[in-house]
């Protein structure tokens, strides 16, 4: 009895709904990760732009110019988008290691810098070229938004990278980087969860990953089973969301037409 009271005191009532949905969502992810995938391999639809990733790395190699990868000014390491970007970075670094192409990674956040150094270094050793890893290429530039923008801009206009990856959380600096990249004719692959910057990336870059595609991209590129399982879980949740919206809308419409006040059960 007392444990129940303590438990009740510990869980605030207004968030019970979120708690239950969180648990359901977690169970779905666990289900697709540990049970479902063993039975049937999961394939993912074609994502525009991802076929271009290898071409972009190949192009940099052929032209003997560096490849620039930057995660934007808007994120920090606690942000899931940054983790997704690190995933893609790991894939890109494996390729640049194999092709012996310079990978330049400027960032505004020292913690991201540290993690990226770790990620790239491991990718280089995993592919068997630890000596090709250059720590100085993964550098902290400035935490100020336009200090960062000016720095990356400078790197782009002076080292003239053949390919530019803009993957992460971007804010206003997005178009400065994308237009400068354009002026030196780099192939640009962008992807972000910052919705307003997407419009600029779509106009100025060759390929753009929109929101959730960024999360799916790492699974698509690496073929990593656990990421693919997550994507599958996301899809299952999307179906649930679609059904919820349809049912709730019909319910609301019937209620409205019958002249009753709306029950609003869908607001929790």
């Amino acid at each position, binding site marked *: 009895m007392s444990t129940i009271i303590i438990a009740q005191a510990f869980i605030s009532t207004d968030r019970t709904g979120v708690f239950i949905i969180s648990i359901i969502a977690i169970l779905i992810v666990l289900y697709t990760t540990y049970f479902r995938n063993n039975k049937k391999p999961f394939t993912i639809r074609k994502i525009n732009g991802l076929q271009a990733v290898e071409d972009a790395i190949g192009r940099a190699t052929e032209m003997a110019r560096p490849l620039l990868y930057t995660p934007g000014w808007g994120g920090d390491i606690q942000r899931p988008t940054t983790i997704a970007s690190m995933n893609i970075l790991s894939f890109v670094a494996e390729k640049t290691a194999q092709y012996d192409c310079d990978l330049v990674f400027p960032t505004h956040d*020292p913690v991201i810098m540290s993690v990226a150094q770790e990620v790239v270094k491991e990718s280089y050793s995993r592919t068997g070229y630890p000596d090709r890893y250059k720590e100085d290429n993964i550098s902290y530039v400035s935490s100020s938004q*336009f*200090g960062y923008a000016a720095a990356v801009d400078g790197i782009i206009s002076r080292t003239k990278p053949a390919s530019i990856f803009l993957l992460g959380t971007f804010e206003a600096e997005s*178009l400065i980087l994308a237009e400068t990249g354009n002026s030196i004719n780099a192939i640009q692959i962008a992807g972000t969860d910052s919705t307003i910057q997407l419009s600029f990336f779509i106009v100025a870059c060759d390929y753009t990953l929109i929101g959730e595609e960024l999360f799916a991209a790492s699974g698509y590129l690496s073929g990593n089973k656990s990421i693919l399982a997550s994507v599958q879980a996301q899809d299952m949740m999307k179906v649930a969301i679609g059904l919820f919206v349809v049912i709730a809308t019909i319910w609301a419409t019937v209620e409205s037409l019958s002249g009753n006040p709306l029950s609003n059960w869908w607001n929790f």
Partner: protein
Amino acid sequence: MNRQIPLVVCFSFGLMMFLQYFSTHTVARSLNLAILDYWQIIFAFTLILGVVSYIKVNMTKISRGIDRPYLIVGLIGMISMPIMALIWGIKADSPFMWMFENVQAPMASTVFALLAFFVASASFRGFRARSTQASILLGAALIILLSRSNLPIPYAENLSEFADWIRNYPSMTARRAILIGIGLGSLTTSLRVLLGIERTWLGGEN
């Protein structure tokens, strides 16, 4: 061992933060605050790593003679800020804040203002009605811009109402769907991190 300890730490802190979200208990609230303070403090220490990396990278370039005079100016700028702060403090009218207000801020806002030009060149170059999708993008942008130009044209009122309608319904709903997708993607990514399936940040997949 190198991987086990961080994974355990990651899981325990993650679980704590997850659970505290649902609790109004004082223990949970203060735990939340404490961990958020840890973020700031760890960030502050890591900034030292960042600054050292900046100095190192620039020193290497200077010793190789690449862009020497420019980089020296940058280094002097960087070092002079803490020195000024130490001598005169950082209150509103100190030399440190003078540098901020008259050197850093105007340059940063001008770099920002460059965007107006890049917007113009991107409009000229990138905004082509190549496909149905591109035409819709272009049409929506034109309607919004026209409606916000204070033009003395007939139906300006209706145009502006139509622009608001676009912003409030079709545009808003698309953004909502993007947000929902990002929410789901973030959710599963975070969960993989907690469970230790996602280990890229540790450098490896195994």
